[in-house]
């Protein structure tokens, strides 16, 4: 618990204290590592850290996108931005890649795992290849990454790992249970990992956003329930500094999902939403 409070102070200092960059931070800036760095939430998450002169390791498939993000973060004040083009779609590959990245860039202070595919449930049910890819990208790859991170960060005994799950993982609904079940796996995996890493001083945060207005949801009609990536990323940063273990963002989803989880099955199974 001593380590926990030390960590809280550290992230507070990095994110909140105005212009008091300690000598230590100058020499050894806060290291932020983002998997799926080109996702809508990832960029907004990274920006406040860049303002505070952090250094970054960004992992995503597309080099052009990574270069544009890196330009933005450098301009805002990032000390260093390392980009890694890698397709995060397998357990062993993601595990090995993460180990290699950590070897070259050192263990991170803050990690965000943000990659994922949404997919259309009906189409997924008709395509074994698409279903396989969904589970590889959304479940197996994050697990590989988390396994590698557990080793490296557990050794150093500090840091935060935030993983983007979803409210869809709270209960399998008729319209998107394929995606929902991948996120359910992530919620449960991170729940256990949180308990396992707690004594080692590493904090694991499970992020459960509702619908977020990003490229992933562009084909869906905009609704008042849809949050901006900026709002979601602000909530994540706050949850990191306050050590909220499971974050529903925006917060009204906590209540909605509480109700949905507690609906009796004979009613729930008749709902087609």
């Amino acid at each position, binding site marked *: 618990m001593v380590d926990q409070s030390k960590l809280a102070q550290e992230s507070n200092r990095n994110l909140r204290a105005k212009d008091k960059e300690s000598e230590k931070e100058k020499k050894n800036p806060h290291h932020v590592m983002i998997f799926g760095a080109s996702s809508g939430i990832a960029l907004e998450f990274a920006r406040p850290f860049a303002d505070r002169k952090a250094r970054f390791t960004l992992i995503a498939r597309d080099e052009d996108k990574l270069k544009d993000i890196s330009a933005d973060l450098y*301009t805002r004040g990032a000390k260093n931005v390392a980009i890694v083009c890698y397709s995060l779609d397998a357990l062993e590959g993601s595990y090995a890649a993460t180990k290699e990245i950590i070897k070259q860039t050192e263990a991170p202070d803050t990690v965000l795992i943000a990659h994922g595919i949404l997919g259309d449930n009906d189409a997924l049910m008709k395509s074994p290849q698409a279903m396989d890819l969904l589970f590889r990208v959304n479940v197996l790859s994050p697990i590989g990454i988390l396994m590698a991170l557990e080793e490296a960060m557990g050794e150093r005994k500090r840091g935060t790992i935030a993983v983007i799950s979803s409210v869809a993982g709270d209960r399998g609904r008729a319209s998107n249970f394929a995606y929902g079940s991948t996120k359910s796996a992530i919620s449960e995996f991170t729940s256990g990992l949180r308990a396992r890493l707690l004594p080692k001083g590493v904090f694991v945060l499970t992020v459960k956003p509702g619908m977020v207005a990003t490229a992933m949801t562009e084909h869906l009609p905009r609704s008042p329930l849809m949050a901006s990536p900026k709002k979601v990323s602000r909530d994540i940063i706050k949850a990191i500094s306050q050590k909220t273990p499971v974050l529903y963002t925006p917060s009204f989803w906590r209540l909605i999902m509480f109700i949905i989880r507690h609906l009796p099955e004979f009613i729930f199974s008749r709902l087609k939403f």
Partner: protein
Amino acid sequence: MPTHSWGRIKGQEKDSKILHWRKDAFALSQWTGPVLAYGLGRSYGDSCLINGGTLIQTSQLNKFRHFDPETGRLSCEAGLSIEDLLKFSVPRGWFIPVSPGTKYVTMGGAIANDVHGKNHHRRGTIGCHIIDLELMRSNGEHLQCSLQQEEALFRATIGGLGLTGLILSCTIQLIPIESPYIDAEMIKTTGLGEFFEIDRTSDQDYEYTVSWIDCMAKGDQRGRGVFIRGNHAKGGDLRSYSKQKSPLITMPIDAPEFTLNRFTIKAFNEAYYHKQFSKLKMVRQGFDPFFYPLDAVGNWNRIYGKKGLLQYQCTVPTNKVEDLKQLFDRIERSGQGSFLAVLKRFGNIASPGMMSYPSEGYTLALDFRNQGRKSIELFHELDKIVIRAGGKLYPAKDALMSALTFQTAYPQWKEFERYIDPKFQSMFWERVSTRG
């Protein structure tokens, strides 16, 4: 959901597409046309709207590209808003060289309309400060345009109403500031005569000048108003300024039709004029209330009700003061009060923009509630006075001018047409480019 312009004109697009990355636009040649870029929708009329085809939403294309703290040159993507630009630049001691009346404008939109501000007499339009811009054309050309390369296309794109291709990014020269505050002076004026006099003597010493005019005042009160002038404050802490929470309040719904009528407008103007007792008031205020007073009310256009508002902004040459007075007469006689009337003198700094609106003379901006037929009639009467005086209307604000009015005021439109990307179209251009 169809898009609206700020004056609540409805877009007729078939489809819309959000641009997240510059590289998304590299496939422009494969998209089905027509297309048009749409930023934050602050254009009042129909210049940001399209009839059929696809609206390309650019406000997510908002990343910085590069900043040189020595020279104050900033490169950014075209969807970056002036709000986000200032959040970045002010603590670093730099300010946007030219600012329109709202910060909810994208850089791409600012270039496409070659926007002006309260310092036109000192710094010209924003186009005078654009060093280069990145343009994607539907024939697959991906160009860096500046005065040194692709000069013609650079000039056509500044003030080119988004028709010359898709602006992806730009580099702008910022101006250094010592403080986030403005030292402002408000001077009550008794009539247009006094306005001209103060205006003449303020040019030299004030970066920003503008005047609010009470167009409801009659008799010997006619033309009274408040002359506002200011300079960036000297010294002080760049970070001391806690920026205005944006917006402070928001209009949740359209106000009912009767909210703005002759009496409430008169009362507002009366109150605004008399809010200041003394002849001269000096204040040090943050840049937000000085430049963007209306941004404090989110969706303020809803005050005008469901039918929206019509803006009328025109310029008449400096030597046509009589015509300017006639405009005021005509508005007064129509009984259609303008809620906010703003008068400013443009200086003689030429913009590189081929179709740029500002030119030396007096510019008058008026807000009217959209009253259909009645408004159209008044506007056409005003058009006649403006055209006769050799003046012109501002496309970014216009929803009603005829093709003839436009083509008379902008004789270079034919030459400009050669630079229009064939895949780009807007409701405004369809309206004003008809022949006959």
